[in-house]
């Protein structure tokens, strides 16, 4: 899935910390949002019966004559769920949007596994088509790559239904990267809201083809819905392109506005982007960061 030079690009990157997505207690170097047995100081609090006496800060007691306990942040690892839309609509573009999504998913899984995080892959269409639960280790990386390699675009998509269904079954906490084109009525906002409601930390990676962003045709064109070809077609001409762009911008604004409002990272990538370009977009929008 990844060329050696692409893996080199990933070596300097890591998934951006998300405390709410870190599973405390697991082996890993990420700080969880919960208190626990970590080395990072979080706060002092009065000693209560039953506290570990080893946690009493005796220097404070010496100054204040009060028993206070040092509280640390728990540490754990990140559970990455990579949801890849493999419906027929992802076949659009050259290279296809699915190919692009698979590369992004592979990169994210690579970063997770390399940083001792757990990574899993979920392929979905109008329902979950394939599921690889998050796990750590090099072996998981090969399994994710293998699963991604087998994905082919087919069938209709229903992102809202899939996310709603997945939010009910996924274990918290988890970082859920949803890779899709989001070209559905409602832009998948209902599904994302369900993920947030279940305490999951979603990230939106919207994959579009260049011809979807800037359609280019001089004469009339008969458009066919690739997922519902029996539902007829629509004849458009070049005069409608500008209006279409505006409509697409309004659609994106709906999704982007939701993400901004709820602190959800939103990345829009184009299927013909280079791998470096993809990583740059992920880094810019806070999905990945530079490894310290």
């Amino acid at each position, binding site marked *: 899935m990844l060329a050696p030079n692409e893996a080199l690009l990933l070596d300097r990157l890591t998934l951006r910390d998300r405390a709410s997505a870190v599973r405390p207690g697991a082996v890993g170097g990420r700080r969880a949002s919960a208190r626990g047995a970590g080395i990072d100081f979080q706060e002092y609090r009065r000693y209560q019966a039953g506290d570990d006496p080893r946690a009493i800060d005796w220097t404070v007691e010496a100054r204040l004559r009060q028993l206070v306990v040092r509280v640390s942040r728990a540490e754990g690892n990140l559970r990455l769920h990579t949801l890849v839309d493999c419906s027929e609509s992802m076949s659009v573009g050259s290279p296809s949007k699915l190919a692009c999504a698979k590369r992004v998913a592979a990169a994210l899984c690579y970063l997770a596994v390399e940083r001792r995080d757990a990574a899993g892959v979920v392929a979905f269409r109008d329902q979950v088509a394939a599921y690889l639960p998050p796990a750590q280790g090099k072996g998981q990386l090969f399994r994710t790559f293998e699963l991604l390699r087998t994905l082919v675009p087919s069938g209709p998509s229903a992102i809202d239904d899939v996310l709603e269904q997945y939010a009910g079954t996924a274990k918290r906490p988890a970082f859920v990267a949803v890779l899709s084109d989001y070209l559905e009525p409602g832009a998948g906002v209902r599904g994302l809201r369900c993920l947030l409601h279940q305490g999951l930390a979603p990230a939106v990676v919207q994959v579009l083809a260049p011809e979807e962003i800037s359609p280019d045709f001089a004469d*009339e064109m008969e*458009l066919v*819905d690739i997922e519902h070809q029996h539902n007829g077609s629509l004849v*458009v001409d070049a005069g409608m392109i500008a209006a*279409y762009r505006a409509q697409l911008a309004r659609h994106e604004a709906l999704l982007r506005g939701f993400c901004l409002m709820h602190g959800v990272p939103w990345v829009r990538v184009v299927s013909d982007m280079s791998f470096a370009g993809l990583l740059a977009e992920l880094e810019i929008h806070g999905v990945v960061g530079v490894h310290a």
Partner: protein
Amino acid sequence: MRFGNPVALLLLLLVPLLLLTRRRAHTRLPVATLFLWQQLGSAETRSIAWRFRQHRLLMLQIAFLCAVALSAAKPFISIGGAPVALILDVSLSMGAREDGMTRLDRAKAEAISLLERLPRATRVRILAAASQPRMIGEFEASDDAARLALQSVRTTDAAGDLTGAIQYAQGSGTPPRQIFVFSDDKRGQAAGTSGVDVSWFTLGRASDNAAITDLSTRRSATPTAQTEVLVTVANYGTSALKADVSVSLDGTEVGRQPANVPAERHAANLFTLGDVEGVLTARLEHDDALDADNVRRQIVARSSKIRVRTAGAASVFLERAMIAHPDVALVTSSAGEYDIVVCDGCSAIPDGSQNVLFVPPRSRGSQNPAELVKIAEHPLADGVELAGTSAAPLGLPDLPGGRTIIALSNGVPGLVAYEMHLRRIVGFGMDPNSGRLPLSTAFPVLISNAIRWLANREGTPVAVTAGEPLHWQLSGKERQPVVVDPAGRSLPTTFVDGVLSVVDTSTAGIYRVRLDSVDRMIAVNPAVTGEAELSAISRSAGAADVASSQAGAEYKAGYQEVTVILAFGALSLLALEWRWRLTGRVWG
């Protein structure tokens, strides 16, 4: 809209072909979803401008094809404006029946068919052409009232005056753009309207027909007072006619004779009846195309003598001349009723309403007889040969009113006829006892003419031809008389200076004049002259001519050919399409 070459409209079939090819030419592009485009469509396609923009190239091509097809079809579009006039000949001959339909029925059908072809808003003026033109009304071509008005038209028994109808159609209101005449080839009657755009619908075909062309009665001079009835039958057909001619009096048949008339000939049958009085009807018992001309009527009045009262000592020559007239009865007493006064030796005209023949008094030493010279035609001088006659002039007083000097004697008026108001006066300004005139054969004839003219029995006709106005001389004492037609309807009349006039005599039959004292009758007979000869079509026009006439009688005045305009439009559309292909813009 009409088309000169309607076959070219088949080119319009290329339009669906174009649509099919256009549909195939669309490049199909799979997209992830249509809903963005569909949302766009629902917002954008509400405007007509967007729809036009969406398919403007296709619309240009379709418009080009339509323009080419229409221009090749040579279209004529109607242009509004002046009305058209439809004139239906309702003369006697239009009642001729052929294949169960009269010629007028065919005319109505053609007229209604023409209405269907006219532009809906065209004003149509409908007239009936009988002896006098009659305006039926003016309607829109699409108005059902126009069809009802056409259906209500009936034939008359009169001759048709198409020239008058055409002139009437032109003169009433806005002059029509085109005049359509539906007639049975009476084109020659409209020769005086050469400057008018008249289209003719020739209806009917040559048919055999026979008619009674004349019915006359005459009182015989025999002591038994017989009435001779002469019935003239004309055979306009191509084969000999053998049929009976019956004569009935007040509905009772009083005579029947066979009539054998060779083709295209006339024949007469003479019936001798007694001293009869009443409505005499002659009927040709023959089934032909036109029934109305097989009957003819005459009013036979009982014989009555002209009562002449002599005033003064009438000249013996004058008295003998009057007695020689078989219809004259001399009345010597002024107490009885009389029709004419003959006053020999009157210095002035006697008072009264009666007509007068007066002779000025003869004085001693009167002038010598002088030769008479006839200087004017008058009923008094009919059959009178005055050459070689002479009489001594007496000198006539000047009288007001219309005076006609008929003969001069020695340069002064010798015989003068006056008409003053309702009176007729004959001035005999010559000595009836002098010269060669009293001894000549001209004298009794002259006196007989004078008596007949003064009796004025021609002023009360007993039979006229349908369509001709009826004038009836009545006494001035009558109040407004009423005239009733054969159907019992009261007719409009004018009654001026004792003359009763009836204009509408288009229906043959017995008309009754209801006077204060007594009813009188008058027979109106069908106008057979020029109407009964139903074979006139074949004589004046061949079948091919009739057909071409029919084809040419199309509504054309309101149409204008627009082929050039459409061809120019097609070229313009072609240029726009090429501009679109080259620049991507239609205009701007």
